[in-house]
């Protein structure tokens, strides 16, 4: 019996979450990385909150980008290594939707914790409370974009040996507009201005990437898996 599209994605999502929770230590790694990177900046620049406040949006956003990149390495590799992915490509089910479900699972595990943690980190860097809603909103939309773009990169490089540096090289330039809109949105909110413009743009980009990204991911995965 063929499962419907919704239940197919649900199955993949549930499977990935279950697998991830068996390795708690790996789930929290991106989050710990995020916090450590944001700690580096006060140490490197100055403990003065007045100085840190000006660059706080940039710090949080760059750290989130790097953390999301770090987690991409394990997005597809285990499934490709143990042959699961090859069976998926042959299963006749829409591969793009299965990969989208996997990306969603990845975002829930590696993106959402950062979004929840961000106000705390922002507070430590002197960000006013009035900017928190925009910080959380921009990160929620932005990390979604990062996960989809990163997913395309991960699918392209999954068969390449030592692909992690290559992955960063491919994905970071593509992600630069997201960084611009995300960090500027927070910056505008901190100065009491309206940030709806960049937030709308981030939402539009998320929709664009979610609608086109899975097709590219599936095409890339088919190339990577065929031997």
């Amino acid at each position, binding site marked *: 019996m063929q499962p419907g599209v919704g239940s197919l994605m649900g199955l993949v999502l549930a499977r990935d979450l279950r697998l991830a929770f068996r390795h708690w230590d790996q789930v929290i790694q991106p989050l710990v990385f995020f916090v450590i990177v944001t700690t580096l900046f006060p140490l490197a620049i100055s403990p003065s909150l007045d100085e840190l406040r000006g660059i706080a949006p940039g710090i949080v956003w760059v750290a989130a980008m790097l953390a999301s990149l770090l987690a991409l390495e394990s997005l597809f590799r285990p499934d490709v290594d143990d042959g699961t992915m090859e069976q998926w490509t042959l299963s006749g089910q829409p591969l793009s939707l299965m990969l989208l479900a996997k990306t969603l699972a990845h975002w829930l595990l590696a993106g959402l914790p950062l979004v929840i943690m961000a106000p705390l980190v922002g507070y430590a860097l002197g960000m006013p409370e009035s900017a928190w809603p925009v910080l959380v909103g921009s990160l929620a939309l932005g990390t979604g974009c990062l996960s989809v*773009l990163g997913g*395309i990169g991960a699918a*392209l*490089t999954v068969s*390449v040996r030592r*692909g992690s540096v*290559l992955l960063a*090289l*491919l994905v*970071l*330039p*593509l992600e*630069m*507009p997201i960084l*611009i*809109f995300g960090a*500027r949105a927070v910056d505008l909110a901190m100065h009491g201005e309206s940030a709806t413009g*960049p937030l709308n*743009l981030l939402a539009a*980009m998320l929709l664009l990437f979610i609608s*086109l990204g899975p097709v*590219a991911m599936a*095409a*890339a995965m088919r*190339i*990577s898996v*065929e031997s």
Partner: protein
Amino acid sequence: MWLWFYQLASPPHAYRLLGLWRPWLLWPAIALMVIGVYGGLVMAPADYQQKDAFRIIYVHVPSASLSLMVYVMMAVAAAIGLIWRMKLAHAVAASCAPLGAWFTVLALVTGSIWGKPMWGTWWEWDPRLTSELILLFLYLGYMALRASFDDIQRADRASAILAIVGVVNVPIVKYSVEWWNSLHQGPSISVTSKSAIAGSMVWPLLVLLLAFVLYFGAILCNRVRGEILLRERNTAWLAESSLKS
């Protein structure tokens, strides 16, 4: 019409035709370059604001235009190669990447040399230069991905996907960088202000742009021929023609 198209797509024909076309691109390109450089350096009057420094525009703008045009061409060729499984299109895409990257480097270097007398610094986070820099990163990523596969067919198809994703992203990059820069009060002198450009200043620019396009075409012919040889190394036609020559 279709027969002609299929013949063009077949590697032996393409190999022969590209060799025939090349001189018709190369020599006009060189002639136009001489005319354009003469027009730009000698005949065009000095700009009233930037004096003779504005003459850098005649090498900067064609390089910058080519860097973007070549990326789009690469992505279109990659898409054709991916959809119709046409080897020739992949050969074109593979040949475009290093050339486009060099045009991007040229645009960056000439832009920053131009910036020194205008802004007083070699590097300013000007929106055009910043998006050129991101474009260079996109080219480098494409070439790195291509180089990381041993099998040429897989390299072709994987890098084709990256080129297509990249070309969707290029307008977003351009727009976001311009928006990002508009939030700051940038330096007041723009290296590409089109306000006070007279006709005698414009025509050398158009001539040089055409010259760059033709020159790129001529180099592309050679590179695509090389890529065809690489992809067809086990075929009979290649062995025959190689033994004859």
